[in-house]
């Protein structure tokens, strides 16, 4: 340290008459060349410091932005979160456990490990599914939406060893193993006797849309009549509406054969059918063999031979 401690007693002058009140000279500042040079150097230094500071700030901002961008891309590319939940929506009857079985995802599978296009194909390969969508809902959900076929008929098979099995026929003619349908629904579905192709096969069922229209119309407009339908026979319906004599045959508990003209006015045909039932019921409800509604502008009823004989005798 320079010197030897503090002097005894203060010595700095303060107060209104001290030199410190002279420190703000009102006169013009003395401006020597050296002072100008020093001032200029200081200004350059400050400007440089500001520029460097600005550069640092910009670099920092750029760095943060780049880092964030990098973090974002990592999120997309990385295995990310594990799948926590599968959100399954269907317009049909397929149960939740079915989707679990079909997907077959292992525990701990992450969002980005899932091949959503593969899963969609896998789900749509199942006959009951008309179309499906698979979506990742970040951070950890997988959403699957399914549209199922509407069942209209049942198809019975019998194997060579005599074992019987059933398949469902959808409104668009698709045939599939039905899963999840309540028994009451299945019981209501009539069986179908398909049109057998010349080579002995019956798939795919062509023109089934017309059959579905008839069934759906009967189901909603004449449910009592529909419930009596056991079998829809397509033996005389090839699906090709251009061909003449295309008939949809219904076998019911009341009448063994009811013949509908394909691609015709089903509503009118059903009304005639109901009329015939009422008329017949009013006349002692004789047993009928065939009701042919496919005739153009009229309907024909064929009674059983005993009933016909009884009717004939009563008539004369």
């Amino acid at each position: 340290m320079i010197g030897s401690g503090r002097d005894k007693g203060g010595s700095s002058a303060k107060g209104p008459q001290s030199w410190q009140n002279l420190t703000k000279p009102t006169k013009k500042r003395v401006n020597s060349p050296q002072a100008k040079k020093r001032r200029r150097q200081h200004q350059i230094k400050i400007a440089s410091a500001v520029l460097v500071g600005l550069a640092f700030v910009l670099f920092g901002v750029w760095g943060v932005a780049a880092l964030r961008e990098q973090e974002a891309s990592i999120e997309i590319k990385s295995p990310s979160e594990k799948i926590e939940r599968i959100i399954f929506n269907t317009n049909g009857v397929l149960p939740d456990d079915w989707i679990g079985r079909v997907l077959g995802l292992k525990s701990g599978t992450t969002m980005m490990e899932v091949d959503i296009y593969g899963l969609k194909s896998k789900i749509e390969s199942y006959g009951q599914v008309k179309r499906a969508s698979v979506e990742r809902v970040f951070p950890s959900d997988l959403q699957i939406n399914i549209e199922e076929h509407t069942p209209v008929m049942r198809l019975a098979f019998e194997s060579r060893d005599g074992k019987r099995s059933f398949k469902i026929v959808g409104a668009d003619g698709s045939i599939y193993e039905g899963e999840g349908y309540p028994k009451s629904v299945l019981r209501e579905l009539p069986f179908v006797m398909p049109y057998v192709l010349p080579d002995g096969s019956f798939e795919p069922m062509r023109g089934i849309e017309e059959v579905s229209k008839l069934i759906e119309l009967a189901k909603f407009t004449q449910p009592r009549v529909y419930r009596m339908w056991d079998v829809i026979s397509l033996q005389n319906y090839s699906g090709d509406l251009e061909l003449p004599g295309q008939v949809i045959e219904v076998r019911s508990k009341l009448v063994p054969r009811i013949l509908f003209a394909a691609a015709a006015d089903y509503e009118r045909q059903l009304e005639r059918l109901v009329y015939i039932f009422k008329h017949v019921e009013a006349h002692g409800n004789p047993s009928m063999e065939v009701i042919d509604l496919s005739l153009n502008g009229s309907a024909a009823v064929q009674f059983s031979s005993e009933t016909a004989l009884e009717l004939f005798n009563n008539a004369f």
Partner: protein
Amino acid sequence: MSHSRVVGAVEIGTSKIAVLLGEIVSDAGLNIIGHSACSSKGIKKGVITDLDVASDCVHAAIMTAEKAAHTRIDEVYLAQTGGHLKGNFNIGVTNVSSEEGIVRGVDVERVKDEAKRRNLPDSRTYIHHIQNPFRIDGKPVDNPISRECERLEVGYWSVHGDSGIVSDCLRVISGIDLEVSDMIISSIASGAVLLEEAEKDAGALVIDIGGGTSDFVFYRKGYIVRTGLVPVGGDHITNDLSIGLRVGRKSAEEFKVKHGRAYYETGDRDEKVWLYGDLTIGDRNYPQSAITKIIEARVSEIFEIIKDQLEMEGLFQRTDIASGIVLTGGSSRLPGIDEAARRVFGLDARVGEGPANVAPELCRPEYSTCLGLLHYALTGQEDTEEAAKPAGILRRLTGLLNFD
């Protein structure tokens, strides 16, 4: 958190301008990081006579020191000298206010204010109020607080200068965008660095013989009791030699530096000294005795004037100056000047030496004032009791936020 500030100690002298740069770290340590000195222009007897020319010199010296230190000065401590400086001794007296007769802080403040109350003419401005010992019922004490007495007194040696001259000095510094943090007269600054505490307590007279003036400070019992100035310095010695030997000022200055002595010895009688010493045409020799006698006469005159000033005020008691005379300033380098002082004052005398922990080139007497300014930059010159106050929260926070 440690912070540092760069302090510039600036002495605007008649013959030279000296600048020392010190870095004060955490208000606890000081490193001298740069210095410069250049010849003065536009200054006579310590007073600025040409503001623009003087500013050029001062600014050049400051910039040279800054360049050497590779930094900028934050604040300036400025030495003040010149014949315009005067002083007067004022005494404050008060009766102790408490019923028990115990001196309290409020009494001390009141007596101090009383002592410093004297108004100056508008053309004058105070530079220092130097406190002397308190007296309680006539007895001198350092700290009167809690002492029992009826009457409390304190004396102040107040130094004041011409407002215009002081203002010019401030304008020179503000011209280079710096502010003066404190102003200290040269002799006090030199005394602070040349004397030990014990020497101040024993009593000492420090005489700073500059180019145009000779300043002095008189310490008694550790207190600065007087400061003063004689408007005669080394330049006058040069002038005397020029006239006495009939040579030019430059040659006279060379004689003073090379062959000057301040005390005549019998051996000087036969000794001859050459003007140039290189055997060139026009070179002549002069008797050493003539040179010595001229210098001795002027140096003795300076000492006599100082002695007379002290004696006139009744302060010159040899028993009060046990540490003797300490000489500093450029002219103190004259051989035999201590002997001259010893003869005039009848006291022990020596040439002051700079602190041991300072570089040798800064220990020269020319830098003693600037070293003293740095000493005050580090320690301050506040009252003891004020300085002892703990720093307030606001002050500490301000210190923390000081990024300079």
